């Protein structure tokens, strides 16, 4: 048994996967997993979907308590790390305990942005990031009549879909000119706009909220837009994006820009410290650009790559990014990163759904699909192969990704 100790700060998807992968890769030293939230590490994606409907928190746990005991993973929940001392190689918790490390992994994730809107403190103004948020949202949703969602990204639209299912009136207010603009192409935005409007949701695009309106008792009664328009509502969800939790790293003197800077091996500027998931920015193996991804896939694949490196099998990070969002009966899936696309082919297969293929300089860059799992998985396989896929070759297969992936 090695006497080395890996300390992981953050008990989300990436932190949990880090601990699990270290053991599955054969690491025999000590593993300490420190999480800010109470209880066992849990799945976050269902918080804006299934959990709002079934409210079953126990189903969210990655693994039961026994898993941590069996695998000799020391889990320290409900504990915030307040400082890293890279010279002495230890972290200090908010309660003053020092925990020494040989290698430190920062999996601190991200937190919700508080947009510059007046009166955010009002009652019934909620956010959604963790289990406690989701439980609160779920409890209040049943009593709401008209929910206002500020921000038309994944979380805002997933919540809007669930709220509509509850029979609550929903208005989404988005500053950009289209939905989910940061992550999807115009064709997909349009598709989802029609879907949500078709279910009775009102979507106000290119509109900014300037203040929340007090009903006179400290509870929210609506919002006022920058153009002066008032929209009434008795509950508000702020879903205006996230910002990386990188303060711990910057205070320790690590290089930080949009998140903690890491190299292609997920190492920070201190070789004894790695960072993963939402809180780090890393070189995209395809474009070479530095990117910061907010996804389960990045967090878990980063963790696996770090675990392999710490057990003597280093390789540059090269996983294909993928994302998903479930909104009502529509499953959006994305393979690859679409930024830099210069050409797009959109198809509506006979089986229903939507397939949008993005190219850059005649090569396959990313694929967005709605209710087309086979096209999505084919795209992931093609992008992971490392072989460039020429647009002309796909065109020769009528842009049928499944056929093409089978043929090559």
């Amino acid at each position, binding site marked *: 048994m090695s006497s080395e100790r890996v300390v992981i700060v953050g008990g989300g998807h990436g932190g949990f996967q880090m601990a699990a992968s270290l053991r599955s890769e054969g690491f025999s030293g000590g593993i300490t997993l420190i999480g800010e939230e109470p209880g066992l590490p849990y799945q976050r994606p*269902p918080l804006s979907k299934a959990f709002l409907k079934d409210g079953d928190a126990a*189903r969210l746990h990655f693994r*039961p308590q026994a898993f941590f005991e069996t695998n000799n993973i020391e889990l320290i929940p409900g504990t915030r790390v307040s400082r890293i001392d890279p010279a002495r190689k230890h972290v200090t918790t908010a309660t003053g305990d020092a925990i020494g490390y040989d290698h430190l992994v920062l999996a601190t994730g991200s937190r919700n942005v508080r947009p510059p809107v007046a009166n955010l403190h009002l009652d019934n103004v909620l956010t959604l990031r963790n289990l406690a948020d989701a439980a609160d949202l779920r409890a209040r949703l049943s009593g709401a009549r008209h929910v206002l969602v500020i921000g038309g990204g994944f979380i805002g639209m997933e919540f809007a879909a669930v709220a509509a299912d509850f029979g609550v009136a929903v208005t989404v207010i988005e500053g950009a000119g289209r939905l989910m603009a940061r992550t999807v192409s115009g064709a997909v935005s349009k598709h989802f706009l029609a879907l949500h409007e078709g279910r009775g949701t009102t979507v106000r695009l290119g509109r900014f909220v300037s203040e929340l309106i007090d009903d006179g008792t400290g509870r929210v009664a609506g919002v006022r837009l920058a153009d002066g328009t008032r929209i009434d509502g008795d509950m508000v969800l702020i879903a205006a994006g996230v910002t990386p939790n990188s303060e711990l790293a910057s205070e320790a003197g690590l290089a930080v820009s949009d998140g903690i800077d890491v190299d292609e091996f997920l190492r920070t500027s201190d070789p004894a410290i790695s960072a993963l998931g939402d809180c780090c920015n890393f070189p995209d193996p395809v474009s070479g650009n530095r990117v910061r991804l907010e996804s389960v896939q990045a967090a878990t694949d980063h963790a696996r790559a770090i675990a392999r490196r710490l057990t003597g099998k280093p390789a540059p990070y090269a996983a294909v990014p993928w994302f998903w969002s479930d909104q009502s009966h529509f499953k959006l899936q994305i393979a690859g990163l679409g930024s830099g696309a210069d050409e797009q082919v959109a198809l509506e297969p006979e089986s229903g759904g939507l397939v949008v293929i993005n190219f850059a300089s005649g090569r396959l860059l990313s694929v967005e699909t709605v209710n087309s799992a086979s096209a999505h998985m084919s795209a992931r396989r093609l992008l992971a192969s490392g072989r460039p896929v020429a647009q002309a070759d796909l065109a020769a297969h009528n842009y049928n990704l499944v056929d093409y992936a089978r043929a090559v």
Partner: protein
Amino acid sequence: MPKITFVSPEGGRTTVEASDGDSVMQTALANGVEGIVAECGGAMMCATCHCYVDEDWLARTGTASDEERSMLDFAASEVRPESRLSCQITVTGDLDGLTVHLPDAQI
């Protein structure tokens, strides 16, 4: 509570109690059954909770849906007619005694 038996690739049998409404995948994780990874947590975004339904039970669990089959195409182990994603099988009283076999690899 319905009982479910998981059979490892080596033939080891683990029988656990399941809760109605949970998936077979959730039942495996909650009881520490090894061999189910469930990377995406049941969102049908991966194929790491692959199992083979014992042929005696296939009529009751049903076979994979088209979307499930698309994901199974990317499973790490051989896909057979009785292959299912265990996150897509919901436990009911009718499945008391269900036996599923686990594949050699999930990743």
